[in-house]
């Protein structure tokens, strides 16, 4: 009798296993003997892995990453990606980090600075990366080229996984907050911290709906028109493209983004566009306050609505470039700035 | 264009010229005065061009002196020598398109002050020079499109346009049809100024030059009037040819090459 029971259980187990295996298309590795105790464990773990993630390579081509287990040794060349990892509580797994412009939000500065840095810029030497014995490299899309960090294919062939942050992937798609949700979701799956990830996404989504509730009431003609300015000089300024993350932030905050082609241009274009509010990019070496002063002091711009009414709002580099878990807070702040009456 | 009294003596004493470490010419003594047409002959590489280049200041002597009208040439500014010394060298191809008229007008450069434009007199002189060499119909043609001989004649015209008091010619009759060879030599002879010319045609040199210097291996090996200089021995030793030399009734020398 007992013998039969074991046989049936074994049968059920193997059926479940093969079913799971078929879903993922890969044979699971089960080497431990099946006991009553670890049966549960094995089922949980096996249900989660292997995990297939849709990601990309440096040129924007789709590449699948299949994870048999949670990676243990992360090398990351992008502070904004690192910030996400820190938010997911994965600090201990980061064995190699890099610095880059803008670095991280103040909130994470201490944690960030305590990491092991393998490079002062986003292109560490391949051998330095290898020296850390990573099993995954998480980073910025444009650096995964032959001459910089190395191609995705090279790393994968060595058995090292790669994950490119969504908003950094090459291609024509705009950068959006939705792609940050995707990052959080993906990283949650990869590291088996889906609970934490879901909570973060929920948090962001609830803030988003708070904002949306308020701003959806605004009539189309009352929506504020916003232009992003990165740098300004006497007769010229640098604008951002409509594909940058700033456009998405502005839109979610209930305003209309006037960002279009971007690039260096005459301030006459600023005058012609005549935005209601100017969004200024803030960086430690290029503070928003200076740019605001310059804009206010420029005689030719005196009649631009945003400058006449002194409607300036700034956004930190980390939030405008690739975005992060905290970026939804920025959207809230932008909405409050655009429509102060709504948020009193 | 009679420059009879406005002529300039050329005197070279003990001249040596090095190019790099190599001694190209040594102990050269030359006198060109009294409106003479003086020729310099010799095989290729004998140093004829080097001598001429030193006189018109392209090369610096390593020893010896050069005088123009008894003034040391080093004491003269380049513009001064250019005013008085006309030079015609081998023609070259220019990377830029100039008309024949423009090229010849450049001959007036040594005589023009900084912002001074070309005036009617300049054009008159230029066209007279063109006339003399038979190139007046070519004035609007692009210099680069001319044949070798035509270019040569234009360059003579340019040299003449400078109204020089002495003329240096480096193998002026290369590329020219025999008609123009003789015509050119007639022209320069009629100028009644000192002419110092490197010649390759010995018969023409004998006829037109009142004095000849013969160069070999960087030295002057013979000098004197053509009759004295052009002997069977000279042709044998210097030029490595056998020749028969005769005189006709007018005293004109005729060198006939009979073999090597």
């Amino acid at each position: 009798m007992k013998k039969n029971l074991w046989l049936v259980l074994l049968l059920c187990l193997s059926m479940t296993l093969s079913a799971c295996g078929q879903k993922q298309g890969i044979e699971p590795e089960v080497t431990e003997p099946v006991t009553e105790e670890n049966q549960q464990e094995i089922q949980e773990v096996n249900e989660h892995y292997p995990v297939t993630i849709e990601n990309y390579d440096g040129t924007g081509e789709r590449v699948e990453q299949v994870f048999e287990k949670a990676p243990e040794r992360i090398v990351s060349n992008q502070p904004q990606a690192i910030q996400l990892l820190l938010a997911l509580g994965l600090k201990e797994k980061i064995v190699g980090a890099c610095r880059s412009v803008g670095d991280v939000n103040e909130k994470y500065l201490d944690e960030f600075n305590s990491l092991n840095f393998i490079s002062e810029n986003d292109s560490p030497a391949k051998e330095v990366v290898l020296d850390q014995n990573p099993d995954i490299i998480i980073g910025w899309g444009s650096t995964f080229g032959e001459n910089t960090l190395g191609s995705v294919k090279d790393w994968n062939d060595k058995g090292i996984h790669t994950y490119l942050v969504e908003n950094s992937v090459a291609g024509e798609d705009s950068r959006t907050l939705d792609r940050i949700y995707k990052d959080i979701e993906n990283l949650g799956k990869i590291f088996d911290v889906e609970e934490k990830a879901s909570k973060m996404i929920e948090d962001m989504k609830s803030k988003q709906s708070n904002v949306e509730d308020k701003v959806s009431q605004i009539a189309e003609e009352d929506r504020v028109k916003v232009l992003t300015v990165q740098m300004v000089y006497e007769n010229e300024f640098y604008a951002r493209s409509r594909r940058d993350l700033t456009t998405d932030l502005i839109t979610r905050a209930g305003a209309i983004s006037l960002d279009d082609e971007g690039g260096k241009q005459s301030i006459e274009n600023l005058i012609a566009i005549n935005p209601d509010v100017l969004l200024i990019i803030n960086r430690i070496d290029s503070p928003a306050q200076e740019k605001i002063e310059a804009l206010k002091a420029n005689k030719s711009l005196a009649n631009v609505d945003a400058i006449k009414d002194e409607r300036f709002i700034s956004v930190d580099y980390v939030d405008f470039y690739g975005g992060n878990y905290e970026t939804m807070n920025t959207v809230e702040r932008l909405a409050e700035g655009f429509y102060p009456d709504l948020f009193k | 264009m009679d420059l009879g009294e406005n002529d300039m003596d050329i005197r070279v004493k003990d001249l040596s010229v090095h190019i790099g470490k190599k001694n190209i010419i040594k102990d050269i003594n030359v006198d060109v005065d009294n409106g003479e047409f003086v020729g310099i002959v010799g095989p290729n590489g004998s140093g004829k061009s080097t001598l001429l280049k030193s006189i018109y200041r392209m090369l610096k002597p390593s020893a010896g002196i050069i005088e123009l009208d008894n003034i040391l040439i080093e004491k003269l500014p380049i513009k001064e020598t250019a005013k008085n010394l006309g030079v015609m060298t081998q023609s070259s191809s220019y990377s830029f398109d100039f008309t024949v008229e423009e090229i010849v007008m450049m001959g007036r450069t040594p005589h023009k002050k900084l912002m001074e434009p070309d005036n009617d007199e300049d054009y008159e002189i230029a066209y007279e020079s063109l006339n003399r060499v038979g190139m007046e119909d070519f004035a609007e043609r692009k210099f680069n499109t001319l044949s070798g001989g035509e270019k040569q004649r234009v360059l003579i015209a340019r040299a003449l346009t400078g109204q020089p008091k002495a003329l240096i010619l480096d193998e002026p009759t290369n590329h020219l049809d025999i008609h123009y060879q003789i015509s050119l030599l007639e022209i320069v002879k009629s100028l009644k100024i000192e002419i110092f010319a490197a010649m390759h045609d010995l018969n023409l040199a004998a006829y037109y030059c009142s004095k000849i210097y013969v160069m070999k291996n960087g030295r002057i090996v013979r000098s004197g009037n053509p009759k004295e200089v052009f002997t069977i021995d000279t042709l044998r030793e210097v030029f490595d040819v056998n020749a028969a030399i005769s005189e006709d009734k007018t005293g004109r020398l005729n060198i006939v090459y009979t073999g090597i």
Partner: protein
Amino acid sequence: MIILIIMSCLLIISVVLAITFGPVSIEAKEVAKILYYKIFNIETTEALELLSSSRADIIWNIRLPRVLMAVVVGSGLALSGVTMQAVVKNPLANPYILGISSGASLGATMGILLGSFHWFGTYGVSVGSFIGALLTSLFVFTIAFSGTGRGNTIKLLLAGMAINAMCSAFTNFIIYIAKDAEGIRSVTFWTMGGLTSASWSLLPIPLVTTLVITAFFLTQFRILNVLLLGEESAMTLGIDVTKMRKIYLVLTSCVTGVVVAASGTIGFVGLIVPHVVRMLVGSDHKRVLPISILAGGIFLIWCDVFARMIIHNSELPIGIVTSMIGGPFFIYLMLTKSYGFGGE
């Protein structure tokens, strides 16, 4: 000289016409009035009202200095092209062959990415590029005129190439180690050239320098002609070739240096304008110099109009425009006119 008069008129007409173009639409009639009132200091109420409007400000403070800068830069580059081609006796020479453009790029890159020259404030990059331009010229002279003392044109060109290579190497090195994607974008914009920064405060130095040196070269037409005949012929015509070459190179470098400092490296103008002018009026510098200078100004005015009007809400770097227009036009002229490039 009829052509000179026609070209001068064309230049003045171009200046006035070009000012009517811009993203803010201003009627041509108003443009004319603004210019008239301002230049002749008319003080009627109508005049004062118009002059205090933002439209007058745009015309007078943004567009006019920009168009004037186009004239200065275009003329300066054309002048440098003519003189450089005469000095090195090569119709394919352009103002940048002696390493000036790469030296200027190095200076500008240092200013943008390393913050060198920051004590010059907003003019730091311009100053940096000017210093770079002059230093490289100095190096090239020293190398080319050393040794035999009689610097020949081959030596000049080779020295220029060597310095070009060195400066480019340094520039690329700085770009590589910089952490700054946005700074690199700025460097790229600078290299492609642009008149967006033009203002009344930026105008005096390039204007005065170009004017003075132009006036000088206009007196040198004879010597420039003779230089083209080659060293030997030039000497027989009384020109101290080495001395004149040195003087001309120094002055040309000054003009190119200030022009590049104001507008980045705008290519093609210095090569093409003298060529086209020669095709039309021959090689005599008495004509080539003044006509090239006027033609260069007119050409660049219209390239700039195109550059700032072609893209809505942005601008095309002017170097792209000069190449796009200059290239095919030059090929067309080459095919239809008999033009000697040296030898039959």
